[in-house]
C-alpha cells in the first residue's frame, strides 16, 4: 500500500505525539517520489524540537521549508509569515503544514481560515498511545474535539505513531496499529497510515497491517545523538 498525497495536508495532534517527525519524514518520502513539497513550520507555541531544526537537511534535499523570519527563528511568539497563506492559496504538489501541539497549537489554523476556505483539505491527527492523555480512545477523541473547536476545522484521518523513541519494539508497532484502528473507527475517519522506526520496517509482519506504513528516520534528536540520514529516502 502506497502513500499518496497532494494538495493541502495539515498535521495536528497532542503535544509530543510526533507531528514534526511525521511531517519531516512524509515530506522527504513524497519528495523522493517526485512530488514538489512545501513544508511549513507552524509550531508557534513551543520553542524546542521544531521542524526548523531540520531546515538545513530538508533544504539540501530540495524541500521548500517555510519558516518565520530569521531573527524570530528561536522565539515562541505567534508569528505567522505571509508565505504560509500564499502557499495555501496556490498549492502545487504537496503543501504540508506542521502545526503546534494540542488545541493551543492548532489555534493558528483559525487565523488561516480565509486561505483555507473552499479548499479540499486533509487534516490528520497524529496519535501515540504511549503518551499521557492519549493512551485511551476517549483521550484521543477529546483532543480531537478540542482541536476541531479551536481550529474551526474537521479532522479527516488518523496517523498512528505509536513509539517509545529508540526503545520502540515490533510489538509496540502492532499494539499501536490496533489502537489507532480503533480510534479511527470510533471517530468514523480512516486510519490513513502508521509509522515505524526505519530499522523495524523489514521485521514487521506486513500481513497484520492493513494500511500504508511510513518509515521514520528520526531527525529531532538531542545534541549527544545523530539524526538518521535522510539520503536513501525511498522507503
Amino acid at each position, binding site marked *: 500500500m502506497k502513500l499518496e498525497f497532494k494538495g493541502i495536508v495539515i498535521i495536528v495532534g497532542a503535544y*509530543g505525539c510526533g507531528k514534526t517527525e511525521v511531517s519531516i519524514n512524509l515530506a522527504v518520502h513524497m519528495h523522493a517520489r517526485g512530488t514538489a513539497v512545501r513544508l511549513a513550520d507552524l509550531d508557534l507555541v513551543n520553542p*524546542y*524540537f521544531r521542524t526548523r531544526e531540520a531546515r538545513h537537511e530538508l533544504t539540501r534535499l530540495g524541500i521548500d521549508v517555510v519558516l518565520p523570519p530569521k531573527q524570530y527563528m528561536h522565539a515562541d511568539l505567534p508569528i505567522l509569515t505571509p508565505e504560509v497563506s500564499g502557499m495555501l492559496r496556490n498549492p502545487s504538489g504537496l503543501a504540508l503544514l506542521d502545526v503546534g501541539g494540542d488545541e493551543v497549537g492548532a489555534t493558528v489554523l483559525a487565523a488561516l481560515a480565509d486561505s483555507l476556505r473552499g479548499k479540499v483539505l486533509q487534516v490528520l491527527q497524529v496519535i501515540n498511545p504511549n503518551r499521557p492523555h492519549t493512551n485511551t480512545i476517549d483521550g484521543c477523541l477529546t483532543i480531537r474535539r478540542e482541536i476541531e473547536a479551536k481550529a474551526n476545522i474537521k479532522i479527516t484521518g488518523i496517523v498512528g505513531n505509536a513509539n517509545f523513541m529508540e526503545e520502540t519494539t515490533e510489538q509496540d508497532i502492532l499494539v499501536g496499529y490496533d489502537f489507532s484502528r480503533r480510534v479511527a473507527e470510533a471517530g468514523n475517519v480512516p486510519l490513513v497510515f502508521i509509522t515505524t522506526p526505519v530499522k523495524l520496517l523489514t521485521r514487521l509482519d506486513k500481513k497484520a497491517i492493513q494500511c500504508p506504513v511510513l518509515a521514520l528516520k528520526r531527525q529531532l534528536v*538531542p*545534541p549527544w545523538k545523530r539524526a538518521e540520514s535522510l539520503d536513501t529516502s525511498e522507503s
Partner: protein
Amino acid sequence: MAKVLMKGNEAIGEAAIRAGCLNYFAYPITPQSEVAEYLVRRMPEVGGVFLQGESEVAVGYMIFGAAGAGERVFTTSSSPGISLMSEAISYIAAAQCPAVFVNIMRGGPGLGGILPSQADYLQATKGIGHGDCRLLVMAPASVQEAVEMVMNAFPLAEKYRNPVMILGDGLIGQMMEPVAFPDHLKSEPTNKDAWATNGMDHRKSKSRNLVKSLFLDPVQLNDNNLQLKAKYERMRAETVMSESYNTDGDYTGLIVSYGTMSRVCRTAIDMLKAEGIEVGMLRPQTLFPFPEKALADAVSKPSCTHVLSIEMSMGQMVEDVDRFVRGLLPVSWYGKCGGDIPTPEEVIDVVKERFA
C-alpha cells in the same frame, strides 16, 4: 508500572504527585510551562490543587504559607522566575520549612533567551537568597533521573526542613524519553509535629509552633544560623551523589560535567575511546553538597593530568572544581551559554587541545 513516553516537564509534574505532593503553585515561563499544562489536567484527578499566582514573588510566598502549614508543596519556574522567588526562598530556609523548587534553566542574564542553559549554578548553590542560607541542589541528566530526584526531593526537604532545588536545563524539561514511575508513595511528612502550624488539634506535642525568620536578639539569630550551618554540614556528610564514567582504567584527563551537558560529554568520551584516547568523567548529581571527595579520588589517579569543567555557562561550576582539586592539577573550563549546546565534536577538539 509500564513505561510512558514523557517530556521532562510532564514527568516532573507526575513525579511530584507520586511523591504525595498535591499542592502546586506556579507562574508560567518558557521552557517549563508544560509542568503547569500537565498539572492543570492532572491535579483535579487526584484531588490536588494547582493555583497560578499573580507573579513569581507571590508564588514564593504561597509556597512559604503551605510549607509552614505542613503541606507538601512545590513550584517550577525558569531562571528569571527563580530570581523573583529568591527572597521567599531565604525566608523559607530561615524558618526551616520544607519545600521543593524546580528551576528549568534558560539563558541569561536578564531575560536572556528561552533555550537551554546551566548559568544558574552559582545562584542555586551559593547565592539563592540573602543571608546564610543554602539549598540542597540536585541536577538530573535524564527524564528518568528527574523523576527519581523529584520523588526524593520531598522526603529530603522534610528530613532537613530546608528547601530543595532540582536544577535542570531547558533540554531536560523539553526532551522526551520513556520513563517508569515507582509505586504511588503518598505519605505525610513524618516530622511535622515539631514545626507545622496546622492547629493544636492534630498535634501530639502541646507546645506552640511558630513560623518565623525574624530574630531581633543577636544571640538567637546567631543560634538559628548555627543550626542552619549544622544542617548544611549534615547534608555534606549524608547526601552527596555523583556518578563516574570511564574511570575504572587509566585516563589522561577528567571531565566534570552535569545535567544534559554530561550526556554530550559521554558521547565525546566514547568517540575518543574509539580513537584510543581515554578520558574519565565525574558527573555531580548533587551540586550542593558538591561531591568533593569523589572529585579528589578521581584526580588522584596518577595518569590524570588535567581537569576540565564543561558547562552551559561562562564558567561557574569550575570555581568549585578548582576549589576541590586544591591545586593538584591544572583546571580549565569550556562552555557556551546562549542556547547552543556544545556538540560532542567540540568537546573532542577541546580535550585534544588541552590534554590529549
